[in-house]
């Protein structure tokens, strides 16, 4: 086993622990959010192992740094209300959901992933994940979707301000 593989296994194991923690500790939303932060942070490093620098750092910046802070903020605000705490209890669907999840994992694993078993790494492009190359493609071939996503973000800002106002 090479150094690359060991690094990957460690990172992936932490990511999986984080993902599992989100669900297992779901009755304590702050714990759950913390595990999600762990997962997102390590996911950024998994992107680095794929050579995608810009996306890896964006992952940490956007998800771990901004979105999850927002989640924690909301959880703490709502934690004052008893209804929020009551809603954290899970119901009797647990075992079935876990069973279905395991089935899905095995089915997709067997049907989709098994044929890809032999695929291994190839020489990476020098410009795979650099800001320059991504910027070039983003502002030429993908300029239209890029503009649309900026409009979407604007709508998101306006919408959230509207929702946050006390009186409609």
């Amino acid at each position, binding site marked *: 086993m090479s150094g690359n593989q060991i690094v990957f296994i460690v990172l992936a194991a932490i990511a999986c622990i984080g993902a599992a923690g*989100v669900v297992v500790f779901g009755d304590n939303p702050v714990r759950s959010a913390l595990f999600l932060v762990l997962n997102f942070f390590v*996911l950024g490093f998994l992107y680095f192992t794929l050579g995608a620098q810009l996306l890896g750092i964006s992952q940490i910046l*956007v998800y771990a740094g901004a979105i999850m802070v927002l989640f924690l903020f909301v959880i703490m605000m709502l934690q004052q209300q008893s209804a929020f705490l009551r809603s954290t209890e899970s119901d009797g669907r647990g075992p079935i959901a876990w069973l279905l*999840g395991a089935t899905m994992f095995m089915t997709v694993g067997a049907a989709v992933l098994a044929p890809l078993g032999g695929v291994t790494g190839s020489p990476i492009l020098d410009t795979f994940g650099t800001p320059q190359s991504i910027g070039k493609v983003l502002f030429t071939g993908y300029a239209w*979707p890029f503009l649309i996503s900026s409009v979407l973000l604007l709508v998101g800002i306006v919408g959230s301000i509207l929702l946050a106002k006390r009186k409609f």
Partner: protein
Amino acid sequence: MGTDIPLVWYLVTALFMFVMGGIGVVVRRNPVVVFMCIELMLNATNLTFLAFARYQIASAQTPEAALQAAMSGQMMVIFVMAVAAAEVAVGLGIIMAIFRLKNEAGLDDMSTMRG
């Protein structure tokens, strides 16, 4: 710079994250936790996109095709991030508004519109 990590490793990690997110959506009744599980699923797909973008280069015939393959996956990740950010802002706003409006509990109680 090549890599000796099989593509399947990334995909299995992503699949595990996705399945966990799916289970969380079904099991948990707390809207914020369900929302977090959805984010988890989105990130799992992001990882898949990136892994395929990275490993498709081998099968590309020309340098242009390789660049295309490498870039399209990353573009998709960027757009997913943008959409997720907008979605979180609005979604959390809605959750806050609901909890402020009616002091009711979890997702199952939010069914006033049901006929």
